[in-house]
């Protein structure tokens, strides 16, 4: 029997021993290979974009790097650009505080809500909730900001802060040095609210990819749903959960308008959650109008963007390493 060659040769397209005509495998493969190449090229777009943005930011922030030392920029605490003082530490600290609080506040309810929606809720609850989450992800930041000013800031100022500082005021973290409600905690709450729809939606979809058989395997052994979630489903999708949280946190790092409307924008290093702070994106947004008209100021703001980029990069690399750690340990 003269079998057709395995190698992709053009003759493959011809009808063989009376069998019906087929599209030659080599053609389909060529399509597949072309697709692979095109897809690969497309992945270059985001890579190129990041490189372009990095280079652009680096070039445009170069002037300030020439006139000020890195140490001075990163450890300085005074921000008087027109007085020639560019201390970025308060902004870095502000970014760190607000994002951390936002993520800490967002993650537990997100996880629980996603689990609830996917494992417990009736279909009708799900079908109502999902479009609402889409909507929540779409509301403009300014609206969140205004909402924060109308609801969160007064709540923090009049209810939450007095209560906390009268009970826990001795802890510096809860001291009320700046009793206006425009604070790290208000910014954190707004951020949490803003990233919630993203985290829930992604975790929910990941939960949906867990095969039903797996749930049945656990439930069949008499496990409760909660045990099934914590012992079987959670470990299985942990990488996905971490990815979802990292995505949420990245979003939080970059969120601008809503935060800046409630966070107080005082270039200081906060020591309490009721202190005002000044995150990097807020710095950029507050002054973007003045960008480009004054060269050194322009460079300083783009340096802020550059620093933010570095923070996001560091954060993501750490998250990736942690993830690999977890996966590695599990592999054993």
């Amino acid at each position, binding site marked *: 029997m003269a079998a057709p060659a395995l190698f992709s040769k053009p003759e493959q397209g011809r009808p063989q021993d009376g069998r019906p005509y087929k599209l030659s495998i080599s053609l389909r493969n060529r399509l597949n290979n072309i697709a692979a190449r095109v897809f690969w090229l497309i992945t270059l777009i985001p890579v190129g974009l990041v490189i372009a943005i990095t280079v652009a930011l680096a070039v445009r922030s170069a002037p300030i790097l020439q006139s000020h030392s890195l140490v001075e920029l990163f450890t300085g605490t005074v921000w008087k650009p027109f007085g020639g003082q560019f201390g970025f530490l308060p902004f870095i600290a502000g970014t760190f505080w607000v994002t951390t609080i936002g993520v800490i506040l967002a993650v537990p309810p997100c996880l629980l809500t996603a689990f609830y929606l996917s494992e417990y809720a009736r279909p009708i609850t799900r079908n109502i909730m999902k479009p609402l989450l889409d909507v929540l992800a779409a509301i403009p930041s300014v609206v969140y900001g205004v909402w924060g000013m109308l609801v969160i800031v007064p709540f923090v100022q009049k209810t939450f802060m007095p209560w906390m500082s009268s009970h826990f005021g001795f802890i510096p973290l809860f001291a009320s040095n700046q009793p206006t409600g*425009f604070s790290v905690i208000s910014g954190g709450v707004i951020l949490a609210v803003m990233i919630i729809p993203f985290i829930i939606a992604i975790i929910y979809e990941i939960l949906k990819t867990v095969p039903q058989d797996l749930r049945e395997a656990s439930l069949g052994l008499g496990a409760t749903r909660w045990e099934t979630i914590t012992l079987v489903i959670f470990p299985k999708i942990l990488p996905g959960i971490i990815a979802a949280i990292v995505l949420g946190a990245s979003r939080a790092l970059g969120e601008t308008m809503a935060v800046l409307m409630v966070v107080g924008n005082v270039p200081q290093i906060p020591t309490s959650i009721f202190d005002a702070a000044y995150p990097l994106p807020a710095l950029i947004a507050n002054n973007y109008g003045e960008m480009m008209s004054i060269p050194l100021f322009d460079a300083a703001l783009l340096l802020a963007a550059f620093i933010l980029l570095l923070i996001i990069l560091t954060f993501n690399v750490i998250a990736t390493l942690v993830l690999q750690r977890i996966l590695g340990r599990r592999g054993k």
Partner: protein
Amino acid sequence: SPATPKDANASSESAPTSGVITISGAFALYPLMTRWAEEYAKLYPDIQFDVSAGGAGKGMTDAISGAVDIGMVSREIKPEEEAQGAYWASVTKDAVFPVVNASNPVLSDLLSKGVTQEQLIKIYITAEITTWGQLVGKPEITDEIHVYTRSDAAGAPEMWAKFLGNKLQEDLLGIGVNADPGVLQAVISDPLGIGYNNLGYAYDASTDLPAAGAIVLPIDINANGTADPMELLETKTEAIEAVATNQYPSPPARPLNLVTKGKPTGITQAFILWIIKDGQKYVSEAGYVALTPDILAESLKKIQ
């Protein structure tokens, strides 16, 4: 088909009467500009306008970089900007007023005495006055002053800082709140708050009184220890009057400017001229302060 000007006073006859004018910049001028644009488009239907807000700095940047034809700038033009080709004309006037909460603990003292520029400096720049008691000379009142300032770079804080001893916005103390409505909102909801707002925000256009929940703090301009009637700007009308007649100090009062890259030409020039001449009649209707004739004349000279 070239449109025939319906207005006999139409400026330069040779100017083309069709095209697109793009404008961006200060929020303070945005509502008025859309009004001007509409009126002008009624005269010259073939001229189209793209008007966008975004802040004074954005207007300046856009104008200098040629991204728009006209930038709206609600502050003074800096030398660096002039060096980059910024060319401007003043078209109307605005002013910044200090505001406090209507249930301020020492409200009656404040209204009777007013605050001096000196005291404001001690609140906003040097932090020597930190309680309302200190401010009105009643040390037994220890309520802290909650100072609010603008977080975004804009004309109002710049003028306010300039008023407080020729300082810069970065020297102003206080919690930074975004935009005029933000500062107003912060003051309205905080009985111990003090802030500053542009004319249109400090006063409510429909009632002629200060915005609900807020009080415009009289500035003791002549530093005689009492708020004289002309310093006590209880209605918007009075405030406009004080600003228009230069009784209210400048800064914090200042002209609002239109910036072009180099001296305007063609339809842009024609439009700005129209604003300076015929456009002025819409200024007070929209709640802005008209310029004094001498400044208007100066603007006219710069553009023509």
